[in-house]
């Protein structure tokens, strides 16, 4: 098992209003089998032992599904590996002596809490505006009374698989949340269950997205490139179609 020395430049910022800066760290003994976050764990263990403040970063499941982790690594949301969340990135993707820059996703709508931790509650408010089917507990009909074509169900699933990490926002030059919003709209608007509220939902979610301070989409497609679960940018095309249709 080969061990590496990694040079880190990590964004440190005490709070939303304080000034931040990159701090250099040299980390020895990094195993290629470590995950990227485990490498940061080791850095933090060292910092704590040296009496310094550890680097704060968000994580939970560490298996790529909860969407908590959202590091921007060498300028790319979730790092170099296609369709891979930062927590699923392994150090075998790096070489001895590499320098790695780690920073938070930067967007007006995602204010920094501390170091690499940001506030993504804007995403919750977009869902709150209309990202659901209004069905009360107990009011549902027998499940197989709602047949859905397999292709349609599979397509809806592909959009529903969004983990809400915010990489799309971090990668977008306009800090747009169009891929996130479009994915939820495409999921619900393509299913029979989602039809009654289709127009209302489309308008409410798009308007909430704007209100939160996310930019508009100008078709750079950076979002699709960094999405850890491979949401297609066609979600955005469908969102625009649904939004326009709802307005006319």
């Amino acid at each position: 098992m080969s061990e590496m020395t990694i040079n880190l430049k990590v964004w440190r910022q005490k709070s939303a209003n304080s000034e931040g800066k990159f701090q250099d760290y040299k980390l020895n003994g990094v195993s290629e089998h470590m995950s990227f976050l485990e490498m940061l764990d080791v850095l933090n263990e060292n910092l704590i032992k040296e009496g310094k403040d550890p680097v704060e970063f968000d994580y939970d499941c560490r298996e790529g599904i909860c969407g908590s982790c959202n590091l921007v690594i060498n300028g790319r949301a979730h790092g170099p590996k296609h369709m891979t969340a930062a927590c699923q990135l392994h150090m075998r993707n790096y070489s001895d002596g590499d320098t790695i820059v780690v920073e938070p996703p930067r967007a007006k709508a995602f204010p920094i809490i501390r170091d690499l931790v940001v506030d993504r509650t804007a995403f919750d408010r977009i869902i709150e505006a209309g990202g659901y089917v209004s069905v009360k507990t107990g009011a549902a009909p027998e499940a197989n009374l709602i047949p859905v074509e397999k292709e349609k169900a599979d397509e809806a699933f592909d959009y529903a698989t969004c983990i809400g990490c915010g990489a799309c926002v971090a990668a977008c030059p306009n800090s747009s949340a169009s891929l996130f919003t479009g994915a939820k709209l495409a999921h619900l608007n393509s299913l029979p269950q989602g039809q009654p509220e289709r127009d209302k939902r489309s308008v409410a979610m798009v308007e909430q997205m704007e209100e939160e301070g996310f930019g508009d989409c100008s078709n750079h497609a950076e979002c699709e490139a960094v999405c850890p679960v491979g949401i297609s940018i066609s979600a955005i095309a469908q969102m625009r179609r649904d939004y326009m249709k709802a307005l006319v």
Partner: protein
Amino acid sequence: MKLESNVPSGPLEEKWSRHLKDLKLVAPNNKRKYKVIVVGTGLAGASAASSLAELGYEVSTFCIQDSARRAHSIAAQGGINAAKNYPNDGDSVWRLFYDTIKGGDYRSREANVYRLAQNSNSIIDQAVAQGVPFAREYGGLLDNRSFGGAQVSRTFYARGQTGQQLLLGAYQSMMRQVHAGKIKNYPRHEMLDLVVVDGKARGIITRNLVDGSINRWQADSVVLCTGGYGNVFYLSTNAKNSNVTAAWRCHKRGAAFANPCYVQIHPTCIPVSGDYQSKLTLMSESLRNDGRVWVPRDPDDSRKPNDIPEEDRYYYLEERYPSFGNLVPRDVASRNAKMVTDEGMGVGETGLAVYLDFRDAIKREGRDAIAAKYGNLFDMYQNITDDNPYEVPMRIFPAVHYTMGGLWVDYNLMSNIPGLFVAGEANFSDHGANRLGASALMQGLSDGYFIVPYTVGNYLADADLTSVTTEHEAFSEAANASTEVLDKLLQINGDKTVVEFHRELGKIMWDKVGISRSKEGLEEAIEEIRALREEFYQNVRVPGESSYYNKYLEFAHRVADFFELAELMALDALDRDESCGCHLREEYQTEEGEALRNDKDYSYVSAWEYGGANGKLETTLHKEPLEFEFVELKQRSYK
């Protein structure tokens, strides 16, 4: 302590429907006068919160994640059981009930399990109406697959992300109520204490994880949905932030903790690779539908797996359990993996792994068909291990996955503290001594959508609550106690990190309170846990301060609670002088190495009452006898 199960009388099939008729109601215009706090927003919490808010209660939700959508239910992969019998293979509510109670090795309440099976079908209806994109057949109807411990196909699934899709359905329903103003949602808030006034649960204390402030919240009822305590083992498939603190603080306020020693060790996880390892990743049990588990017959066989011919492979599950084969329940599969590796037949660098091989399935169905079923799991495996499971067998090993124990609740899911309800994995639940696959999602949603909304109303209807504000001395006392715990930890300023202590605790637990246990090992474990806990309070180093975002401070107080829980788990395992389900005491096995129950002496739920001083637990054991009116207790057999 009085523990009344409150199971209604009457025939098994009618208990729940009769009970529903007897439950008291709160009039619609009165519901808005009641405040209900829901802690945790996983499947149980999100479904309970949205359902209670739809009924008209004033609901507040709290979670430690930055969004309610990230609760660890999201990581459940394989599926959710229901007795729909769509495949026409002979399934029924009775059969789902029977499989679950047998799977739990007859250590759960008949009435609860039957109700769970009854509710299962409504969950599927609810989820489909919400737009949960379950897998479908070409005719447009729902598809099913098989899971361990059952001979029918009753598992509904959404590729390998069923938990994610069900949780997003519940989360979206919850956010709809936030939008309607019926739920106030507080992410990044951690519950530190339960406030009890006149013997009733009347509120909680939380820490705002962003600014570190300690906050008081008053309510008329508290619903705890804070998940399980598998992270006491340090390495588990749980999310890194999953913890026992909320439940443990309720326990310290008087709520009984039931069956703490029942821990599910999942057979199909990616093996440990090094000391830096921070968590273990599950490979869904659904893989055992098509994957075949084996090890080389010769412990010294150093050939690559694909070079080992059929006759030199030991398909130990298929050979030992011909009728269930690779689909035996989880406890049986885990125990057998340990057995073959103990005998030296394990594979991989550490020898602590067995093969899960898809060669035959790919030959039979083609690579595309296998990719359609398990694609994301195969990708995940390759990402972590750098091996391609389409070409070489996966290496798997058991890991801590789920805890069947939890806070004791009655049939109404209320703890012995009136007004404190506990749902989902956090309660001691319906799974007895072992949970079958695809049953956790079912239980969380059954509790949240279809039980708690009725039973909380029943409690409130004649709870006769006095008016209480957050200025009440009980709130002040609890808030001060919470602050003291944090200050104490920050002041120690020792040499060892929280993670180092946690890792050591986990090792004791895995070695001595894990897959198999013995009297001697458990007694050693208790001594070691006490010693380590003492060292923790003298030598832990917690960085920073409590007045801002400080993840390692959160970990420190969670680990402090894990120490006490760990000791209780060992005590419980020591008390249970039998083997049952996941609890294998080496002294009690059949000649074939299966769990040997002792129904005469141990057919009870162990419910522990907290007592402790000077770093030593002084707990009292209460027993709720389990009575079986409708099923006959048998030696479990999957042969």
